[in-house]
Structures are given as structure tokens and as C-alpha cells.
């Protein structure tokens, strides 16, 4: 399992911060890759938020300037309908980010809740929940999403649901492991001895301590979610035209015009790769920081 669990409460695990500036400098020096990743992730978010400003043309406006090579007028060239690739990439970041974050959060929260309950309650509930998670996790994400899309029809919502269904079991597993570890702590036992209700214990004591691994999980899965959306769009499901989706841009136009206009294949793929690369690096760095066992070596 790639995700480690904590064996100390979160607030003991974070390094001391003598002011934000020093902490940042420390972060960058200790984790150059992580800093790079954070930068990429920030760029992605900036692109998504400021798409209107960054884009040079209307992303769905077709024109007669068909398959123009990258140059001063169209920074990354145009596609077979004369649409500016750069603008479509910039607006596409919104879709990728939206689907990525929505599906990751949805899956992580849903799965996390299941893991929390399952880990805390133990016994039969745990056994059943675990088998359920196993079942959901056993199917390859693409297969599951394909079937769902076939059954429910391709759309933005269904894409998000399909991807989150695959993330949920992983979240459940991570949270459950944390819960299992923490449940045995003395302070939880003493709280129970003092008569505190289960729900209160779960929310007040156990949950905050699963936060660390949870955050790591979310950043780790975000990249996967973005990739899943790209693959689904590539296969023709997911976000419908004409709104730009990076995966979709790769499939149709690229397959037809790959030889004549390779920029149509290169840049959307690079966009996906950098977005995922950035979030993965960031996730790695966060995990390295929050997991004490790998620090200080």
C-alpha cells in the first residue's frame, strides 16, 4: 500500500513554523520537487480561474484559419475547425480541474465516511464494508466508467460519479487504517469511559487525526482523476463538444490530423501530463512532510 498511516497525532507531525516565509523557504529547500509540483499546480489553478484573461481567442469560435501552425497569431496553432488551440487548452483546464477536484472530493468524502464508520465500529460492519470496497476497487476504473457511461449516457455528472466510485474505496482504506490506529489510544478509551457518545468521539477525536493521510490521499488521487477524465473523453464519453476538454481534444481531431498537425496531439497531452505531474509532485511532497517515518534521514 502506498499510503502510510500516522502513528502520532497530526499536530505533532508538522514541523514548527517560524513565520510563513521561513517555512516556505524550508519547504522549497527540503523538497525542490515538491515546490516544482506546487508551482505547476498553482499554474493550473491560475489558468482555470483566469481563463478569460489568458485566452487569446474564443475557444469555440470556428474560423477559416484551419490547421494553422503555431505562430504569433495563434500561439499553439489551430485545429481543423479553425479554433485556437491555446485558448482551448486554457479553458480546458477548467474542465480538468473541475472534474478532477469534484470526483476526488466526492469519492474521498464518501469513501472516507465509510472508512470512518467501518474502522470505528469494527466487527461485522467492518467486514461487510471492506468486502464492498474490495469489490468496487477490483474493477478497472476505465471499465467501470465505460459501463456506467453506456448505461447512463455520457455526461459531465456521470463522469464525475464514475471516477469518484473508484476513488472511494481507496479513501475508505486510508481512513479506516488511521481510525484503527487511533482508536486504541488511551485518550479515546478514557473519553468512552467518561461516557462520551460514539459519534462525538468519532468526530472530535478520531476524525481530525485522519486529516493528514486524507489530504495526502486527495492530492495523490487528483492526478489519477484528471487522467481518468482524459481517458474517458478520449474514448468518446465524458465532456461533450464543443467545450474543450483536453482528453477529447486528443481523440478526434488528433487521430485524424496527427500527421498534418502534430501540435494538436502534442500540446493537449503535455497539458494533461503537466497538470498530473504537478499534483503528483505536490502530493508526494505533502506525504513526505507529513509522514515522520520518512523524514530526517
Amino acid at each position: 500500500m502506498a499510503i502510510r498511516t500516522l502513528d502520532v497525532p497530526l499536530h505533532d507531525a508538522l514541523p514548527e513554523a517560524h513565520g510563513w516565509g521561513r517555512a516556505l523557504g524550508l519547504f522549497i529547500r527540503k523538497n525542490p520537487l515538491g515546490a516544482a509540483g506546487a508551482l505547476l499546480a498553482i499554474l493550473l489553478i491560475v489558468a482555470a480561474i483566469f481563463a478569460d484573461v489568458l485566452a487569446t481567442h474564443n475557444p469555440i469560435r470556428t474560423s477559416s484559419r484551419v490547421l494553422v501552425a503555431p505562430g504569433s497569431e495563434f500561439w499553439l496553432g489551430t485545429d481543423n475547425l479553425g479554433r485556437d488551440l491555446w485558448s482551448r487548452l486554457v479553458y480546458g483546464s477548467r474542465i480538468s480541474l473541475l472534474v478532477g477536484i469534484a470526483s476526488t472530493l466526492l469519492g474521498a468524502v464518501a469513501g472516507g465516511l465509510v472508512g470512518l464508520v467501518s474502522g470505528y465500529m469494527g466487527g461485522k460492519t467492518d467486514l461487510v464494508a471492506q468486502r464492498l470496497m474490495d469489490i468496487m476497487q477490483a474493477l478497472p476504473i476505465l471499465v467501470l466508467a465505460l459501463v456506467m457511461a453506456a448505461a447512463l449516457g455520457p455526461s459531465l455528472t456521470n463522469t464525475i460519479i464514475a471516477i469518484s466510485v473508484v476513488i472511494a474505496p481507496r479513501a475508505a482504506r486510508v481512513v479506516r487504517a488511521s481510525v484503527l490506529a487511533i482508536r486504541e489510544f488511551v485518550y479515546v478509551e478514557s473519553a468512552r469511559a467518561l461516557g462520551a457518545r460514539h459519534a462525538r468521539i468519532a468526530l472530535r477525536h478520531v476524525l481530525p487525526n485522519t486529516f493528514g493521510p486524507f489530504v495526502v490521499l486527495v492530492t495523490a488521487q487528483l492526478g489519477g482523476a484528471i487522467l481518468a477524465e482524459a481517458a474517458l473523453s478520449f474514448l468518446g464519453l465524458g465532456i461533450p463538444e464543443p467545450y474543450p476538454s483536453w482528453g477529447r481534444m486528443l481523440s478526434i481531431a488528433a487521430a485524424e490530423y496527427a500527421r498534418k498537425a502534430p501540435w494538436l496531439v502534442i500540446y493537449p497531452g503535455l497539458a494533461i501530463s503537466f497538470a498530473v505531474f504537478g499534483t503528483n509532485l505536490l502530493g508526494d511532497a505533502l506525504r513526505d512532510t507529513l509522514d515522520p517515518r520518512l523524514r530526517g534521514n
Partner: protein
Amino acid sequence: MTRPRSLRSLLPFAAALLLLPAAPGWAQTPKYGGVLVTHPLSAAPSLSPHEESTVAVAQQASPCFNNLVYYDPAKKQESVDTIIPELAERWSWQDSQRTLVFFLRHDVKWHDGKPFTSADVKYTFDAVRGAPDAKVKLKVNPRKLWYENIEGIEAPDPYTVVFRLKKPQPAILPMLASGYSPVYPAHVPLAEFKNKCIGTGPFKLKENKPGELVEYVKNPDYFVKGRPYLDGIKFVVIRDRSTQIAAVQSGQLDVAGTGWNRTNAEDAKKGLPKLVMVETDSNVNDNVLINFKKPPFNDRRIRQAINLALDRKAYLVGPRQGAATFGGALLPRPSGVWGLPPAEIAKLPGMGDPAKQKAEAKKLLAEAGYGPGNPLRLTVSTRALAIYVDTASWMVDQLSQVGIEATLEQIETGVWHPKMTRLEYSVALNLTGVGIDDPDAQLFENYRCGSQRNFSGYCSEEIDRLMLEQSQTTDPKKRLALVNEIDRRLQADGARPILGWGKQHWVMWPYVKGWAVHENSIYNVSRRQDVWLDK
């Protein structure tokens, strides 16, 4: 010879050389042998042309079959005048054009050795026309209405077939000459045609891997002596366009190009200039379906606005990359036989100045109650294939320029036709290819009230009446006048706005000879018995 002849004496010889036709190879002596490898438009859902509606089947099943009559592969423009005998040696119109008698060849055998007789013809066309006493029922019958006018079919002796028509119909011969109208064997169960083929044609089926490969081998007992030239034909399904291009450039494919657009064809040739590129019309058009029965699209102004918003010249440049012809309901001239004159076409909605037409569209929308405060919202439905989606994306943009907020809905191939037949859409981008360049086929299928493929729900009794009239008109000039009149009215009504007629492309090696390409259809030319390889 002790010294060279003077140049002047060589002149006639040189002139003769220059005057010899350069292509297509009809004048040279064909060589026998070789297996031609090509890729089809897509995998064939079955090898039964009567039960399918995609050119992929016509392409991949035609080498196996024969028709009663066929279009001459050597003549580029198909028409009633280029129809030549195949299984029928000759035919005769009788009884004031109401009876068509075919005299069949005596020397034809099916691929399994059994003799071909008139019983096979009766079997086939009784089934296709849905005769009550037909020996077999087609699972699905897309062209049943082609044969509506047949009263009865008789086979008085093994080599004579009589088609009795209700009314005269000059189009019956073109219909029988289509790649979709071969003759089936009466002694083979219909279900076998899904994956196998027993025909009388120049090639016998060697192997069929559904979804991957269809391979034919020469029929040594073909009734046309000396044909086919090839030892075999192989259709290899290649899904990826770049692979198709690379395959023909590297010689793994001898012929490619079906389904290509102009960009790909030019690109392929640019990478290897010795390749031969052919571009002609195809009798397939991009058209817009507006659901006549669904409000607010039953409002004529809205339909007209949508039609005006679509700038045809931009369509030519963008989605078609310059490879299309403008026209009305029938394939425009000169490739087509029945199209409207170019001067009239230039005045159709969408052909004029885009700024003016878009302004007019906005005005019409305003009259109908839609404007910036209350934009018309609709979904453009289309098939989930590249050529459909590209044009539909372009459409969405054009509509947005007149204030219509449109989104795209992609519908998978499997459910496209049923959805369209049941009119479960608002606006759709459609491609229509009719098997033959003939008004009976084109008009009855797509514009008659209640026809299964009349996807827009358009219905006009007057037009129906005119359609019937032109079908029974035997004088070609009178018929053309009627057809043009119908076309005019269809365009005025906006029955099915035509964006343009796309072109077909082929890219092949120069050693491929006799690869026939017709300029007004892609469906009726795939027998391939005259193809040979000059290597």
C-alpha cells in the same frame, strides 16, 4: 540500321505516344495475379447488402455478388444510360413500360456449384419488397420502399424473370443496379449471410474475421471469362487514420482513402508524391434535421433562422477543407444528373453574404420571441463519429453567432437511427448517402410523408403527389423539370437544409489499374473484377 532515322520520320510515332491515354489503364494489357490489400470505411456489420445501410457493406460484399444489371465501372457518371448487363443478358420493356422482362444468362453458377436460375431472382426481390408470399423475411429492410411499385414477379422459366410494375417507373433499373441490390441464392438460409457469403461474383469469400478482416479469393468459375484479374482482395480494418495513411505510404495497403477528407488525402500524397490521388463527388451530403413536430421548431421562422445562420461558405472551408459542392436535395451538376442549376443554388439560404443572413436570422428569431434577454436554447444531436462531430461543433458555433445557445449531444451509432426515426431530438446534424443518384431513391426515402428515413418529420401532400408523378415520367427531360421543381420547393420549405455535398477521396499506388471510381455515388462500383496490378 546503319544510321538513325531523321527526327521528322519519328514525329507521327511520337504524336501517337502522346495521344495514348495516361490513365486509368484500360488501354494497357492487364496482368493476372496478386492480392490487393485495402482498408474499408469500417468493419462490416454483416455481409448482407439487402439488410444494411452502410457503404462499408456495399464495399466489402460487392466482390462476392452480382446484380441483374450493374453500372458500367468504366463510366464515371452513373445514369440510366450507363447500365450494363450482369446476370441478365438483356432486358425488354413491355406493356407501355409497365413490365420489365429480364433474360438471364445460362452459364452462371453459385460459389457452391449450384446453378443460378430465375428462382433466385424471384426469391431475392420478393423478400426485399416484402411480398406476402415471399419465401423469406428480411430481418431489417431499409430499402423496401424502392420496390413498392412492383406488383408481382414471375419466373416463367429458369432463365426468364418478369417484373410487373403498378405504374411505369424508369428508376427501377437504376435501383436494381445498385450495390445494395444483388441477387441472393434461394438455397442458402438468410441467416448465414451475417458472416458468410455465397454469391455468383468474381470473388469467393476466403475468410471473415468480423470486425477485423474480410478476405476474398478469385472465383475460377466466374461467368465473365478472363475475369477477375486479381488472385484475391483483402479488406483490413484499420481504425486509426494515421495508420491508414502510413500503411498506404509504406505499401502495406495498395489502395486507401475511403472515408478520408481532403487534408488527409493531400497529406498522404505529399509524403509520397508517386501515389495517385483521386477526388470526386460521392452523393453523400451534410444536412440539418430540424424536428418539424417539436415546438418551437414547428415555427417556420425559427427553422428559417437556423438555416440562414449556417454560412455555407464557412462550412466549405472549415469542416470540409474545401472539398464539397453546394446543392439542393439532389446531387448538383455536373457530377449529378438531377441537380438544380448553379445559379439557383447560389440563392439558397446560407449561401449569401454571411453578415446579412445572420442579421436576418436574428430578426426572425426576434419576431418569434427570442433575443438577447431570452435566447433560444437547443441541443444539436449528432452521431458520435469524427465527421459528424466536427461539422456539428461548427454548427454550434454558427448558431451562437446569432444568439442561439446550443450544446452538442453525441449519440452512438447503434441508437442513432431509431432515435431519429422516433424524432427524439430538436436539431440534428446528419449525413445522408443514398445508394443511387436517382430522385426516386433520394426523394422517397428522405422527404415523403411517413417514410422511415424522413427524420425531420416533414410532410407535404403536394410534394408527395409531385414525387409520384416524376417517378412515372418516362421522358427524361420532363422528369428533370419535375424533379427540379420539387427540389426548389423543398429548399423553400426548409424541409432538410443541405449544407453541402462532400467529396470522396482515394489514394493508391500507380500500379493499381482499373480501380473504378464513380463521381455520383460510392455504393455501386465495388465489384472490382476489372482491377489488376501492374507489377
